[in-house]
């Protein structure tokens, strides 16, 4: 089940085929990621959207092969990165990929850095790990900080993370992520912990860097607005599965899955006349023993009998727009 690319020149960088990641707990098996398929092309910015507990972070950890052990395990599937299956790699080979070809930016910038080491040292770390370095990396680190627009990089390079503000820490982490010019950057909620004015700055920065380096970005977020600002395509995840894939412009005009429709409608929008906000009733499903039918069926207003019994297959609505729903 490959995605047909809008731009046929683009080659596939990352392909996930029926990836399943489960957590084996005392209460039973939690199917956090339950058969996820998608493709990321070179130079593409893709948003992975979903609510907490829908499996979006576990998907990204599965790509990095960093699923918490021993409870978590990638049960089946293939993760093809540049046509090589990451799941068949040894831990050593994986280490050479992480931080070099695939790097990750995490949600909370203040927690992601080591408070006891200077920012400059931490910036150089990914480079030092993957290359033979004899001299100082100071110049390179200053260059990196300049790239992410930290003011006064010459002196800032000697600062400790606690001397940085949240926005600047996130800039430094982005600098760390791009230090080795990765092919794929996974950004897990990069702007959630930041204020709106800073968020706008960071999104702009990520867009600029992407344009310059042509690396692909997977942006994981719960915020539909962030996705609209920088992504070209988005994947909506619900209950461990991807329920809708669409180009961003199509998605906001014609969302297909009832969950996507509800999600867009339930966001309060500035300046829209107030009245009651649309809300999706009920709670997201537990991934412990999920129902066999559509995961969204219990909350769906248009659910019919088959919805509760058989999981809907992916239907192609138009070029690049796919949805898993019995309505189509």
């Amino acid at each position: 089940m490959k995605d047909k690319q809008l731009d046929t020149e683009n080659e596939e960088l990352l392909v996930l085929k029926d990836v399943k990641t489960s957590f084996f707990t005392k209460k039973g098996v939690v199917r956090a990621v339950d058969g996820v398929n998608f493709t990321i092309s070179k130079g593409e910015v893709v948003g992975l959207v979903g609510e907490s507990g829908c499996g979006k972070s576990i998907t990204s950890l599965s790509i990095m092969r960093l699923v918490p052990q021993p409870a978590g395990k990638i049960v089946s599937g293939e993760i093809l990165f540049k046509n090589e299956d990451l799941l068949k790699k040894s831990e050593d080979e994986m280490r050479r990929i992480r931080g070099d070809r695939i790097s990750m930016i995490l949600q909370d910038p203040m927690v992601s850095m080591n408070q006891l080491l200077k920012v400059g040292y931490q910036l150089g770390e990914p480079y030092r790990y993957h290359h033979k370095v004899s001299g100082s990396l100071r110049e390179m680190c200053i260059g990196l900080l300049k790239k992410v627009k930290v003011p006064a990089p010459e002196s800032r390079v000697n600062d400790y993370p606690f001397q940085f503000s949240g926005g600047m820490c996130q800039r430094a982490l982005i600098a760390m992520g791009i230090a080795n010019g990765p092919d794929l950057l996974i950004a897990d909620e990069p702007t959630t912990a930041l204020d709106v004015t800073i968020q706008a700055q960071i999104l702009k920065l990520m867009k600029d860097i992407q344009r310059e380096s042509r690396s692909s970005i997977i942006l994981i977020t719960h915020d539909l607005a962030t996705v609209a600002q920088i992504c070209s395509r988005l994947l909506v995840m619900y209950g461990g599965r991807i329920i809708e894939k669409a180009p961003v412009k199509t998605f906001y005009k014609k969302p297909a899955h009832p969950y996507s429709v509800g999600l867009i409608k339930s966001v309060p929008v500035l300046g829209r006349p107030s009245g009651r906000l649309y809300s999706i009733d009920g709670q997201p499903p537990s991934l412990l023993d999920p129902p066999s039918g559509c995961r969204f069926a219990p909350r769906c207003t248009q659910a019919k009998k088959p919805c509760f019994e058989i999981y809907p297959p992916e239907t192609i609505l138009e070029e690049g727009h796919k949805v898993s729903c019995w309505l189509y």
Partner: protein
Amino acid sequence: MKNDAIISAHELKKYYPVTKGTFFSRTVGYVKAVDSISFKIKSGETLGLVGESGCGKSTTANVMLGLESPTSGQIMFDGRDITRFSRQERFDFRGNIQAVFQDPFRSLNPRKKVKQIISEPLFIHKVSSRKEISFRIIQLLDLVGFDPHQAGLYPHEFSGGQRQRIAIARALALNPRVIILDEPVSALDVSIQAQILNLLIDLQERLHLTYLIISHDLAVVEYVSTHIGVMYLGHLVERAPSEALYNNPIHPYTRALLDSVPVADPEDIKEITLEGEVPSPLNPPTGCAFHPRCPLCEPRCSKETPFMREVAPEHAAACHVCG
């Protein structure tokens, strides 16, 4: 001016001293977390306070709740200054203003059942007999959309949105007239956030409540509030009815804030309007606190502190240049 406000703050200040030295500590300066802000909320209305982190909005909430005592200024509730209350008066008064906090995972005691959590204020204030209390619990649970049989469960058996409902039920237990909500939905998912916001609006209509809502999310605040106050570095820079604030923002910071809210529309890509970051409150800029980032900055902005001026009925902004 007519004084029909149910709760109001006058020149409210909260300074935290910054000390140096361990044994002979001396005060070397103050962090002006809240610097002379004034506002009033009429009965049945909602004031939303927005601002970036560190602008003093949560401190304002804590001072209003009486969790912190203000450095100076007054908080008037029904014509009485609640900052001057004695211990006993404060205790008796507490039922009038209740709070809902941000993180429903930390604001509920994990070792207590829902009915114990909700009835705790009733027991502390000895408002009713045991029999009445169990009736009241069912009534409160019903208000926030729970079944009576869920009263015996523990908080961990609920999701984030349901826990926030429990926190709201607890806040309603003493029939408060004002509820102060500090980031009530920022820890929740989008689809759940809408449920809670709708619940808050329904409760306000049914019980004629007055809200003070603190949030960093302008869209959320605009949705629930009748009036909005914008804070920057301890100052209130603009205060207006929500529609006026959105349609006709005066202060350059308000405009920048409105402009930088990302929109869920790929055709409407935002350009950043505001460079730089919020300065440290330990060493705030002279004059107007916003002047180093302000696109309209004039020489006098760095020297004179602007005061709130009314530009339209109920609409005031603190800016030398605009308005």
